[in-house]
């Protein structure tokens, strides 16, 4: 090995130097592959995968959310119709009950009115009987005084009654 100070000609061809230039180029290809292209391409691929995963996750979540939304809408509808049903039956029942109460009240009122009528009739009859009795006594005493003779009430009772009847009521 000799260290030499000298220069090549401006234009020179040296097979070893040509081979070294090719070798250097190929080595640099390997260097760039290992230190630049491989790592960057790896990271780009990973990113692509992550983005793809994110997209599919988002799609999945969206479809799930849509399905749940459908479910909730259906449930909401069901609840609404159920509530409607409940209100309807409740109001029907209330109507029926109120009708029953009213008819009961009417019947009660009718019954009470009838009782009152009967009472009134009874009282009237009683009053009329009393009046007739006192009138017949009065008539008898009057007639006794007129004929100055005792009138046997038993004997004339029917007569007197007829008289009072004809006086009217």
């Amino acid at each position: 090995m000799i260290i030499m100070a000298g220069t090549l000609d401006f234009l020179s061809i040296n097979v070893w130097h040509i081979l070294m230039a090719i070798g250097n180029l190929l080595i640099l290809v390997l260097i760039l592959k290992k230190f630049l292209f491989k790592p960057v391409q790896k990271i780009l691929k990973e990113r692509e995968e992550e983005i793809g995963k994110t997209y599919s996750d988002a799609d999945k979540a969206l479809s799930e959310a849509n399905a749940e939304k459908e479910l909730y809408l259906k449930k909401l509808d069901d609840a609404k119709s159920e509530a409607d049903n409940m209100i309807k039956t409740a109001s029907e029942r209330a109507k029926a009950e109120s009708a029953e109460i009213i008819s009961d009240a009417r019947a009660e009122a009718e019954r009470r009115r009838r009782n009152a009528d009967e009472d009134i009739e009874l009282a009237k009859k009683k009053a009329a009987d009393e009046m007739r009795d006192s009138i017949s006594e009065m008539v008898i005493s009057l007639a006794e005084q007129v004929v100055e003779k005792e009138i046997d009430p038993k004997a004339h009772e029917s007569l007197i009654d007829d008289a009072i009847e004809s006086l009217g009521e």
Partner: protein
Amino acid sequence: MSNIEVNGAKILLELPFGISITETQVNMWLVMAAIAAVCAWLTHGLKVRPTSKRQIIAEYIVKTAENFVTGNMGARWKWFTPYIAALFSLAMFSSLISLLGMYPPTSDLNTTMGWALMTFVLITFYKIKTNGPLGYAKSLTEPIFIMTPMNILGEIATPISMAFRMFGNVASGTVVSLLVYAALAAANNALFGWLPGILGEMAGKLPILQLGVPAILSLYFDVFSGVLQAFIFCMLTMLYIASAAETSD
């Protein structure tokens, strides 16, 4: 007038079997080490959800390179991206290294010839793979048999023209810069050298005129030309290989 000497790369180490290590190789290794270091720095601690600017830059570089390759060659050539990326970065930074005052490996014909031969091998490989060995041999005799030597010359001309295009651009930049620098030194000497006594001697040696112009030239020859030639080399490589792999029928 100073003597101007245009030389190739300095030989740093001579090994047996005629192998020698020159500035070309050493500088290329430096470039490769720098690229590797930058890549390793950009891609350490990558996260699926990026939090660092480094990662965004790394992803941008990878995507841009992939789009560059698939845009020119088609989607089925995506696996080819690291080769083009390596070629482009190595060619570009090997030219740009001259901004640091170092010898650009791309101004050594051996470098560009090596890369061009690599392209040639790939072109030929895909032509043979696509058309079969017989089909490839037959394509050289078309349209008529007498054109065979011309066709073979055409095949060989592709890598040679690619190698010399890049080499010529970078090396000529160095040469032109050298010439302009020398010319400016001479003009500087002539302009200020007439001052009397020691003053003239000093002013004549001070690089006054050399201040601005070489910087502008360097902007073209080192930056613009270096990037452009790397781009052209990659484009040609991609287009040649893609068309070589295309079925002719």
